[in-house]
């Protein structure tokens, strides 16, 4: 398979207006990935699936990733006038990166027997705009896995044929795989609560009447 830079150029030539970014991978596995913009994701997916150079006919794995808001600190050396003398001092700059949710697709080719090509899609943020285009129209194998991401991460996949909860029950409210998920203290009924469970469960029991 071609290196990712060639892949990126080929895709951008074939899908005009698409915006791709190569995400480096620091681990020895060296599986780099390509970040695709949301608007052109389906077109890029169909191109990768059908183009004879790629023939990525098999989307093996679809996984959700939750990235929380993070603050990175960088120390920068700057020159400043202090007491009339120019001095070089170290300043710490804080950079805030808003959190987002990611869907990662591992693509392989069964026909040409190569891969993986890792596609990433990112949501705008983690709260109101958790929407991504569904790639199920390109690969059926994403159907259940995208449903699972919708269930556990709360990403809404536009264009998915049957987007329902898949592992949790329908009435469940939250998305348990998110990093900031706090499990409710009463979701498992205990017939005889004791110790800390009793302490937490007290809130949910009505006050006992004295007879």
């Amino acid at each position, binding site marked *: 398979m071609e290196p990712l830079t060639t892949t990126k150029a080929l895709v951008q030539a074939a899908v005009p207006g698409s915006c791709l970014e190569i995400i480096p991978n620091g*681990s*020895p*596995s060296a599986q780099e990935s390509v970040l695709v913009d949301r608007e052109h994701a389906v077109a890029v997916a169909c191109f990768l699936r059908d183009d004879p150079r790629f023939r990525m006919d098999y989307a093996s794995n679809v996984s959700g990733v939750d990235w929380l808001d993070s603050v990175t600190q960088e120390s920068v050396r700057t020159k400043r006038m202090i007491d009339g003398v120019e001095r070089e001092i170290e300043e710490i700059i804080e950079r805030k990166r808003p959190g987002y949710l990611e869907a990662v697709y591992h693509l392989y080719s069964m026909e040409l027997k190569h891969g993986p090509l890792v596609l990433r899609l990112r949501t705008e943020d983690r709260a109101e705009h958790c929407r991504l285009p569904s790639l199920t129209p390109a*690969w059926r194998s*994403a159907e259940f896995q995208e449903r*699972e991401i919708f269930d556990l991460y709360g990403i809404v996949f536009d264009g998915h044929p049957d987007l329902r909860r898949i592992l949790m029950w329908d009435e469940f409210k939250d998305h348990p795989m998110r990093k900031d998920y706090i499990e409710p203290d009463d979701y498992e009924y205990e017939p005889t609560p004791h110790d800390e469970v009793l302490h937490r469960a007290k809130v949910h029991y009505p006050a006992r009447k004295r007879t």
Partner: protein
Amino acid sequence: MIPGSKETVAPAGAGRADTPAFVLRPGSSADGSPAGDQLEISMGPQHPSTHGVFRMDVLLEGERVVRLKPVFGYLHRNHEKIAETASYLAAMPYTDRLDYFCSLTNNWAYALAVEKLAGLEVPLRAEFIRIITAELTRLQNHLCLAGFLLQDMGASGTPLMYAFREREKILDLFESLTGARMMCNYMRFGGCRCDLPAGWLEQAKTLVDNFPRFLDEFEALLNENEILMSRTQGVGVLSPQLAVNAGITGPMLRASGVNYDLRKVDRYGIYDRFTFRIPLGAHGDVYDRYLVRVLEMRESIKILQQALRELPPGPIVDPKAKLRGFRPKAGEAYGRIEGPKGELGFYLISDGSPNPYRYRVRPPSLVNLTVLEDLCLGQHVADVVIILGSVDIVLGEVDR
């Protein structure tokens, strides 16, 4: 059907070869409830043929299936979240519980992904032991599948017990090697937990040498059995195009005639040292799925014979691999192996801390269920059970 009775008016075109003998009624009523002769039934979750707690919402027209929606999650325990809060090594015993028939291949897939993430080497002896245990796992998984499939077909007990008798011998080997029959927890990052005990190799060689004789008997009883053939041939046909697009892997994909086996494609471990062939099906029906698995057992025996013969001495774990304080560099890796049920993959993201930032299992059972509805549409309700049996699911892995 009583000939001449008024209810048995054949639908138009029933006798012609190009039209199906059943006619689907146009749609359901406005509120989505079944219309006319349609009957909505819920197969499972406590039905013995669903291989665990698994439910199918089936809409029937007469005895034919017109809609089928799999419902699962009854065993969901958020395995991925548990692994993300535990250290890398502490997730290893949990992988046993995914597909509880094949704990050793689950261990291997996870170890392989971590080894990719951390760049660890595996000593040659450990690679041999991994292949031996993985192929033994494949043997007993396919045996169980054949047994359960026949059980589903109504061959109550006997074929399953034949299969379990042989499986028990393999489980004895697992027990003497790892201490547990099913929850083996045997692989470690960069090798295996312990070396073979005394006499294990001879015991394994005896088992492998005797196994073809059992398979001969098993095949003679079943392969050309008239009931088996009439129940399974032409039932639940999966086309190769749909199989590839829906990400079907393992024996189910190869039964549809697609030559894709990770042991040949990825050549992970040391599979390129051994000679074996990949059995392929021609029709993609339930019978082919059964037969491909039986033939795969024969190929597994070939691998086992070679591996047991050539097993070299040496260390069984990479001395560089640390058990305590294991912190891979920040990055990510996707490792996959050819499990008995299909492609089992682990996707790991490390942020440099002792526990994985993201731990994802790519479960073959779950993805193979994607096409269950396509396989069952238009089939008899009695065949749904066999089709599900031939998909080979384990709910511990589907629900995670």
